[in-house]
């Protein structure tokens, strides 16, 4: 189960190194698209990091993303950039800790329902604070950070996340998580602490999302609670994770790449019907690809490998 080959790390670094040269060859329009793609890749991977092994579907990605963006909007001009990023990650992790402590020891369904409304609640709280304390709903983000810098930051974040995810999967915690995801009762009998493992993962994944939100904030110039905490983003992240397949590290990444292209095409051609088409695409994925593309491909490979046995096994081989 546990492999020590450095090959995946080298592969990730090599690909990242090649992608890092992109800003020198593409147009600014293409670069903007690539930034959007990287952002979704980070979010979907972070989502899969938690939801994949635990099977707890989080519908609150945008909460942490929005927290990151808001941190930048509030302190971006008064603190050095690395400190802003650290603060964003800390606040995101802190909120995740509170939410996780309250809900992760319960059955998965409570967690899902809680995250379902969380963005609405946070949006209301932030709006209330802005209206009553700062007396204006919107904020401006004027920071001297170029598109290329945003691109590199996101790429670096994605690289770190991917390497971290591979390392995690090979670690004792990663192994414990797979046991917990398989059967929580059994995991308890082994002396594992499911709540702690889930909590650690949820906090980590949320910190990554907050970082992504912080890095993306300078692109917006203007944000208000309705933009920063828009539930559609959470929905898009879940679609991507599911499409790719959330049981593998690279599944959500694959889903993010495919979906970003699809979103671009859809929102260009049918800006009015965007949510309708999103919903339909999502329903189709749930029906046709319950384990994502990666799961489907693995199934096909397993089937072709098993074929020779089937011919001799006759009736028994008919299953699956």
């Amino acid at each position, binding site marked *: 189960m546990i492999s020590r080959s450095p090959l995946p790390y080298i592969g990730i670094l090599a690909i990242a190194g090649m992608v890092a040269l992109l800003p020198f060859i593409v147009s600014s329009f293409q670069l903007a698209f690539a930034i959007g793609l990287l952002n979704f890749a980070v979010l979907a991977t972070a989502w899969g990091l938690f939801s994949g092994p635990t*099977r707890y*579907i989080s*519908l609150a990605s945008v909460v942490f993303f929005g927290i990151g963006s808001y941190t930048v909007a509030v302190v971006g001009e008064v603190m050095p950039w690395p400190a802003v990023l650290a603060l964003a990650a800390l606040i995101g992790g802190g909120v995740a800790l509170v939410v996780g402590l*309250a*809900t992760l020891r*319960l*059955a*998965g*369904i*409570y967690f*899902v*329902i*809680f995250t*379902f*409304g*969380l963005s*609405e*609640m946070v949006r*209301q*709280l932030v*709006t*209330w604070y802005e*209206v*009553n304390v700062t007396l204006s709903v919107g904020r401006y983000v004027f920071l001297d950070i170029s598109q290329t810098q945003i691109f590199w930051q996101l790429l670096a974040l994605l690289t770190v996340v991917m390497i971290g995810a591979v390392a995690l999967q090979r670690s004792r915690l990663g192994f414990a998580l797979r046991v917990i995801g398989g059967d929580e009762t059994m995991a308890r009998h082994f002396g594992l602490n499911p709540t702690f493992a889930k909590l650690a993962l949820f906090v980590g994944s949320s910190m990554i999302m907050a970082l992504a939100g912080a890095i993306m904030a300078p692109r917006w110039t203007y944000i208000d609670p309705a933009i920063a905490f828009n*539930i*559609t983003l959470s*929905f898009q992240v*879940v679609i991507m994770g*599911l499409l790719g397949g959330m049981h593998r590290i690279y599944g959500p990444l694959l889903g993010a790449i495919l979906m970003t292209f699809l979103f671009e095409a859809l929102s260009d051609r049918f800006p*009015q*019907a*965007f*949510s*309708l*088409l*999103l*919903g*339909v*695409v*999502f*329903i189709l*994925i*749930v*029906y046709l690809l*319950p384990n994502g593309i990666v799961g489907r491909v693995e199934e096909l490979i397993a089937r072709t490998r098993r074929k020779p046995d089937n011919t001799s096994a006759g009736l028994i081989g008919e299953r699956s």
Partner: protein
Amino acid sequence: MFLFALLSGLTLGGVYALVAMGLTIQYSVSRTMNLGYGEFLIAAAFSVFVMFGAFGISPYILAILVVPVAFGVSWLIYRVMLMPIVRRARSPLALEIDSLLLTFGLLFAIMGVLLLIFGSNYTNYYYLSVPVRILDATVALNRLVSFGAAVIVGAIGYWLLMRTRTGMVLRAVSVDPVGARLVGIDVNWAAGLAYGLGGAIAALGGVLISTYMTFTAEMGVVFTMKALIVVIMAGVGHVLGALIAGMALGLIEAFVSAYLDPGLTIAVIYAVFLLALIIRPQGIFGRVAR
């Protein structure tokens, strides 16, 4: 102020209680979580808005048309959309996750259709907005009539569930689907019926609320969330509990917006929800932990 908050809380709570009753029936009988539930409410509100504008017929009479249609559509959604998922599911947990994801898609699909037709503007219309004086507070007549309708329908629904054979079948499935099958109950039929009933009740709630509330195509999520909170807080499948908790939710909302800030209602409701989850995860009225 106090009396005003009490009255608006009671009238709002009546509708919440009704809507939550629909969701708890749907969820406990079919064992599938419907995140698109609130969309039925908003879709009904919009269709009444359109027909009221076109024909000038009272929304309460239009409900007689809208509610059966919602029943049919909701039933069809269960038969066509959810049945394949039910058949595929290997465990109750897998079904819960699959149905949740599927109806999350449904939420966006229905919302997308509404956005396409009506845009994202705030919509309202005026019907029976005559002030009525009760002691020293004034309430709009439409609120009172809607509250009365919610109480009557809620009571009839509760009576049907508790006193009729079909109601007993639904309750039996909600307690134990496997056992229900053993005594000859068609579980899928019951689940389809529960879905239809839930959709119909949500639509009725939408009609009632539309008479006095401003609504948008994107508001379904909020109603789904409130109904879910009530259902979980009360304990899944506990109909009377859902009615009481729904009422309480309406009152909390009204008092928060009267004394604290109208912009903090969801935050406070969430705090209550969180507290309930921590103290009694099985629900206030629920007995067995799920």
